[in-house]
């Protein structure tokens, strides 16, 4: 036996205030006896028939009351002296005593006495608390000063123990607490002042309503749910490639902001794709089912990984919605809880229709024809494309900015004669050109220039093409030597990479600003692909060529190109074209328009892996969008010859004479392109014919001897639904059962977890194990009441949050109570609030917010990359990864948007206990380590925040009490005299130091991308040290 016997000891100590300690108190089975039985008896006398000994079951009363193998009766109600159990517990005989020696378990005298008393009182059983049906308890009388029924339940317990609750926290601290709890952001000094001055009885409630209406409420709640949903940006196994899933995060944020009922939230995630006419949003939500880790590792066996994915899904779903640990049942019936192996696999069976691959690649030894051509850079199908609010907004902002830029230019040239004349001349020229060439294009004559040695056959042929056979030897001429103006060119075979095929085009009357290649419909078989690339040059009279650069190109039909699953939309030399049933064209925009001199020729180097028919044209017109150049409506507008922002844009690009203005336009246009017209891809669930799911003996996927199981809800929970051979239940049936009145456990699990967010610990502290090995709730009736409220009043999340944060219990001071050290050492009775260190993401948000550096302009959107130590991703391969920190203002977005690399999570996140989200995480650790100190002291994010905060303080009007302001900003309270003295001295010392070392101050000002301050760097450097102190203080990272 383990001498320390932790579980029993803890029950006596941790919950000593809750257990039936007085001889006259009623012993309660769930509270007092079940935990003992679970830990010491059930292993041999419980649910698992295979490990049962002496044919004795103690978990069922009727079995425990029967005579056992020996004839003795384990439990005789009312008669401990006749009960075999008691005899065995007190036996001195080593062969007889229970728990037996092999179990390494032991009971304390107190526990034995408790057992005895329970039998004496009649040995009544209760169903396990979390599995029994939910029933609304009677709310106890409201204690004086109580705000809502939470206080009635908590107050009743406190009154029982004759404990008075703590006083309400002071207003400054209270607002900071509730702001951090509801938004993950501190209040501003103005908000604090307004609250302090508001003496109305509803002052606090008004603040709660304000905070809950904020779009940042959804962001804060999302952090909670994303751990549960195991949301991450990468797949987790082996190459840890990126996956496209951020719209799911947006969905979650939005769901909390719009207060989507939890039953709908559940349905959409588990079965959004199965709803009638699912919306894009519902399909995005069903991405939940795709958040398991995935592999693309060569040599992985699809069947093995499908089994791994299936098992993980059961663990995650059961933890998320049942707060229970199904994990053990993968290999055997649960020893302590009535979870059978069949339950594990029948839950898994609900998800057997989710379209997925065991290995997301097509290897020769494990072919997956559907994944042909999929490489390490590719996304993980199936995905759904949907309109994304963040990208749409950025797209519109970009377009507006570009229009404004053009409009501003149009206006500004009025003041400049030369520019105005040039613009007018261009408009006229363009008008004339378009009159002569309504298509906007000239198709010159030309000749086939030269052909280098043919490439080595096949090897040089690009991948992903069906046309590679065409480049095999012998090499036939590619085309005739001459072609006439306006005529298409028919290649006789493909032109491979490296084969320098070029044609020279006759000079045109107008400059060349863009080049267009047309590939008419039927040029390739339908759905065939061809890789095309082009580059350009000018040949002088002697045939000597100089290159002509282009800055952007696009094609009307092309396969996307990926860089770590991000679709590349910027400059490219070529694409894989997939031939649709339509004409295809591609346009290249030259870096600067060219005008050929006499005897010069325009050279086009063109490669195509297929024997295409094509036509090369040129145009004097350019634009920020390549495909616009020959767009009919655009040309018509241009032809009017009227100055307008649109024509100004085209002028800017076509002439390229005002280089700074052009560069600016290009930068904006590039930003617009990266918004993908406001659409985003996201992994989704697609339902296909279900895989066969069997019970796997010992979890071994190679063992197919187990029975096939169909979907059914857990056997030990009420209202069970089972598939029949005729009707197979679906994920939607599962979701509907989960949120039905029959199921008691989901409401309990969710309310228990939510409680932890505001009170520091769950009512049952083991958030992820509501089974018998977990902890019975400290306030069972309260949890019951919350769960019934939640389930019966519309699964209304905001309502429950509000109940929790408006209670008197919540509003108490968080200073712990030395007077209760003996009575309630863990503050489970809640005679005060509990302090909580901020979660990793909020440690970041808080510092950036205080500094005034945080970017709160938008909600949702793609993941961002804050500064990260160089080389951190070095051990990642397939593909190799280079981390490039975000250079725009997304650098200062909130922590929940940080790129979540499962294999190498950002060190700041790790150091503050954020989980890698490999699996569902219901409860984070809250450690207190030197790594946290190093992060806050030295991570550039926090150093930058300190220097920006310093600059912020120093730009306040002269006479401002800056130190006082710094405390109001950082910890929401007034500074104390001792703090002021001490920090004042630090600033004085540091000012002297930096005065002597101005170069050091200059270096410090360069930490981070934020602009250097306008204030004196020496002063800022000195104040930066004070701000570092404040941002590092325990108070700043703790919600009191």
């Amino acid at each position: 036996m383990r001498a320390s016997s932790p579980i029993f000891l803890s029950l006596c100590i941790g919950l000593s205030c809750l257990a039936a300690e007085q001889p006259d108190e009623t012993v309660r089975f769930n509270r007092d006896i079940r935990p003992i039985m679970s830990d010491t008896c059930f292993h041999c006398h419980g649910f698992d028939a295979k490990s049962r000994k002496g044919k004795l079951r103690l978990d069922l009363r009727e079995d425990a009351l029967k005579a056992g193998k020996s004839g003795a009766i384990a439990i005789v109600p009312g008669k401990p002296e006749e009960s075999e159990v008691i005899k065995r517990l007190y036996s001195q005989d080593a062969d007889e005593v229970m728990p037996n020696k092999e179990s390494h378990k032991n009971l304390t005298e107190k526990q034995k006495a408790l057992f005895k008393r329970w039998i004496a009182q009649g040995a009544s059983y209760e169903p396990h608390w979390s599995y029994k049906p939910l029933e609304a308890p009677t709310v106890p009388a409201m204690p004086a000063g109580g705000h809502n029924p939470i206080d009635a339940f908590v107050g009743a317990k406190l009154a029982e123990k004759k404990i008075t609750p703590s006083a309400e926290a002071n207003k400054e601290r209270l607002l900071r607490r509730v702001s951090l709890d509801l938004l993950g952001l501190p209040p501003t000094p103005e908000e604090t002042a307004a609250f302090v001055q508001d003496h109305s009885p509803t002052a606090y409630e008004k603040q709660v309503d304000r905070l809950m209406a904020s779009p940042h409420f959804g962001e804060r709640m999302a952090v909670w749910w994303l751990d549960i949903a195991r949301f991450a940006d990468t797949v987790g196994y082996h190459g840890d490639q990126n996956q496209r899933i951020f719209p799911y995060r947006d969905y979650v944020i939005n769901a909390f902001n719009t207060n989507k009922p939890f039953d709908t939230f559940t349905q959409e995630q588990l079965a959004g794709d199965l709803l009638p006419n699912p919306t894009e949003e519902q399909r995005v939500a069903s991405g939940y089912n795709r958040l398991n880790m995935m592999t693309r590792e060569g040599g992985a066996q699809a069947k093995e990984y499908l089994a791994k994915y299936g098992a993980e899904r059961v663990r995650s779903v059961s933890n998320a919605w049942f707060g229970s640990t199904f994990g053990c049942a993968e290999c055997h019936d649960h020893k302590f809880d009535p979870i059978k192996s069949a339950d594990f696999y029948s839950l898994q069976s609900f998800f057997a229709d989710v379209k997925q691959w065991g290995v997301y690649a097509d290897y020769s030894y494990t072919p997956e024809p559907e994944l042909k051509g999929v490489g390490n850079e590719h996304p993980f199908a199936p995905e759904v494309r949907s309109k994304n609010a963040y990208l749409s907004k950025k797209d519109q902002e970009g377009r507006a900015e570009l229009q404004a830029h053009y409009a501003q230019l149009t206006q500004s040239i009025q003041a400049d004669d030369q520019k105005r004349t040039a613009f007018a001349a261009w408009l006229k020229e363009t008008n004339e050109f378009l009159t002569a060439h309504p298509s906007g294009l000239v198709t010159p004559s030309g000749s086939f220039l030269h052909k280098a040695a043919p490439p080595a056959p096949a090897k040089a042929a690009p991948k992903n093409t069906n046309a590679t056979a065409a480049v095999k030897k012998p090499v036939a001429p590619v085309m005739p030597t001459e072609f006439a103006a306006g005529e298409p060119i028919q290649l006789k075979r493909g032109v491979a990479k490296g084969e320098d095929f070029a044609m020279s085009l006759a000079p045109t009357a107008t400059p060349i600003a863009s080049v267009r290649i047309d590939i008419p419909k039927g040029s390739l078989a339908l759905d065939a692909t061809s890789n095309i690339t082009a580059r350009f040059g000018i040949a002088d009279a002697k045939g000597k060529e100089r290159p002509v650069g282009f800055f952007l190109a696009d094609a009307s039909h092309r396969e996307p190109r990926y860089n770590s699953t991000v679709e590349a939309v910027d400059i490219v030399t070529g694409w894989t074209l997939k031939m649709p049933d339509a004409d295809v064209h591609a346009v290249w925009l030259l870096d600067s328009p060219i005008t050929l001199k006499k005897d010069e020729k325009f050279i086009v180097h063109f490669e195509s892996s297929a024997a295409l028919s094509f036509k090369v044209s040129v145009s004097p017109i350019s634009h920020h969008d390549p495909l616009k150049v020959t767009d009919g409506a655009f040309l018509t507008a241009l032809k009017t010859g009227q100055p307008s922002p649109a024509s100004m844009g085209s002028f800017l690009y076509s002439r390229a004479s005002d280089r700074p203005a052009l560069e600016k336009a290009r930068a904006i246009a590039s930003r617009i392109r990266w918004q993908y017209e406001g659409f985003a891809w996201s992994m989704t669930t697609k339902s296909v014919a279900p895989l066969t799911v069997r019970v796997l003996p010992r979890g071994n996927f190679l063992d197919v001897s187990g029975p096939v199981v169909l979907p059914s809800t857990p056997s030990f929970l009420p209202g069970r639904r089972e598939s029949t051979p005729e009707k197979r239940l679906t994920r939607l049936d599962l979701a509907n059962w989960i949120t039905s009145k029959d199921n008691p456990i989901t409401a309990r699990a969710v309310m228990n977890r939510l409680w932890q967010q505001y009170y520091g610990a769950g009512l049952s502290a083991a958030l992820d194990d509501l089974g018998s090995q977990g902890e019975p709730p400290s306030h069972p009736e309260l949890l019951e009441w919350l769960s019934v409220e939640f389930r019966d009043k519309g699964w209304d999340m905001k309502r429950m949050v509000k109940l929790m944060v408006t209670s008197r219990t919540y509003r108490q001071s968080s200073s712990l109570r030395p007077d209760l050290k003996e009575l309630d050492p863990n503050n489970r009775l809640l005679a005060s609030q509990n302090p909580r260190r901020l979660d990793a993401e909020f440690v970041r948000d808080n510092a950036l917010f205080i500094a005034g550096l945080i970017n709160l302009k938008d909600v949702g959107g793609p993941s961002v990359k804050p500064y990260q130590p160089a080389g951190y991703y070095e051990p990642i391969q397939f593909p190799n990864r280079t981390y490039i920190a975000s250079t725009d203002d997304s650098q200062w977005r909130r922590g929940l948007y940080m790129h979540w690399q499962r294999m190498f999570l950002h060190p700041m996140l790790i150091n503050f206990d954020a989980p890698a989200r490999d699996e569902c995480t219901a409860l984070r650790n809250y450690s207190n380590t030197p790594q946290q100190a190093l992060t806050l002291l030295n991570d550039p994010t926090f150093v930058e925040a300190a220097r920006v905060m310093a600059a912020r303080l120093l730009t306040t009007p002269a006479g401002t009490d800056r130190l006082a302001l710094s405390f109001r900003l950082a910890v929401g309270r007034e500074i104390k005299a001792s703090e002021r003295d001490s920090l004042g001295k630090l600033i004085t010392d540091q000012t002297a130091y930096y005065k002597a070392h101005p170069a050091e101050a200059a270096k410090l000002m360069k930490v981070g991308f934020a602009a250097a301050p306008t204030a004196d760097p020496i002063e800022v450097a000195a104040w930066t040290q004070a701000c570092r102190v404040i941002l590092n203080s325990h108070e700043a990272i703790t919600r009191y």
Partner: protein
Amino acid sequence: MKPYDPISHALSINRRSFLTKSAYGLGGAAFAMLAAKASAAGAPPASGFSKGFLRSPHFPVKAKRVIFLCMAGGPPHLELFDNKPVLKKLDGQPFPESFTKGQQIAQLQNTVLKARGGSFEFKKWGKSGMEMTDIFPHIGSVADEMCVIRSLKTEQINHDTAHAFINTGSIIKGRPCMGSWLLYGLGAETENLPGYIVLTSTGRTGQQPISARQWSSGVLPSKYQGIQFQSKGEAVHYIGNPEGVCQSTQRQVIDEIRRLNGQLAEETVDPEIATRIAQYEMAFKMQSSVPELLDFKSESAKTIESYGIKEIGDGSFASNCLMARRLAERGVRMIQLYHRAWDLHGNLENGMKMGAEDVDKATAALIRDLKERGMLEDTLILWGGEFGRTPMGQGSGRDHHIAGYSVFMAGGGVKAGTTYGATDELGYHAVENVVDVHDLHATMLQLMGIDHRQLSVKYQGLDVRLTGIAGKPVNGIMA
């Protein structure tokens, strides 16, 4: 042994604050994890054995620290430690189906399996006459310090999951790795350095990715995580002062933080504050001790040469081996070196030669250096990969293999100059004295004085252990 107990854990850190201020518990968050499960029995007594949660050893303590030289990618046992003349004879012939039927296969799925004989000669080394490859002459020269296990089996045939398994004994994510278990059970002997340090190096061929998960503390608090020393940039993340902040400014800032935190503690009862103050001191000490650690000036030219180091701190395995010795000297509990090479699906002979150049001399030098300093006797060295490689050829290389492969141990409590276990005549299955990964873990823990069944943490209602529900210490490996 009792499971992890956040309350007594915090109390042990906050003992003084607890006693003097009569704080009576933890902030809600800190105890939430397992409050009801925890014993409030208080801090362990100070003992030379442990600064962690084990009070006294369960077995005689043979080793105080572990150096795991992880040959990531899976070196081939048939080229190194396990000589199979029969396989050589069968070279190029179809591989007998009786061996492979029903077995898991990686990249050789759906292909014709052919035997591939070992590429190098074997010879007998040392007084013990241990049979080993001739391409590791340096390691051969310390054969008398080694115990080669030729019958190790693992359960996972792909790199990622096999690494998870050999590090944590489970493929379920969130299980603590062995270094974290040691730190949790025994604590660190160093105050100024992390107790568990990871270094990585990259070979010239056969690299495979590794994951920070392999040194994660999983469900244990993050203070038990392995701290990775970077081969580029700062050795430890955020160890250097910010640009433009000198050491004395940093000191003044930390003093000021302490002052602020001290004032907070006077009016707010929260034991975490005292811990926070202590952690800032520790952080500052680490900031000064890491540069000292990285300064190899005190190492003689002879020592540096013996490891085959071309350039100090060049991120090579050789440089990391010398660092490992320096860390061991400073009391770091677990030192893990990953050398990413060895995944030799093709071009195996060449890859092995390069691997030998990078690893052979340094490994032997580390063993010898520790021995000369009298540290080998209480340092346990484990050398090996996450799996072995098939006796079947894959072109010019070998595929992943899990049914039987070799690793070696040396130092603290290991039966030196011996081999243990054997595979069949083709080197496919471990058949004699089979050791599985849990057994290996149980053995390592026993050498550290720990009964593997008694090092556990409560998580999701389970007693989670490094060895799961399995594991048997292997007496034949222990002296």
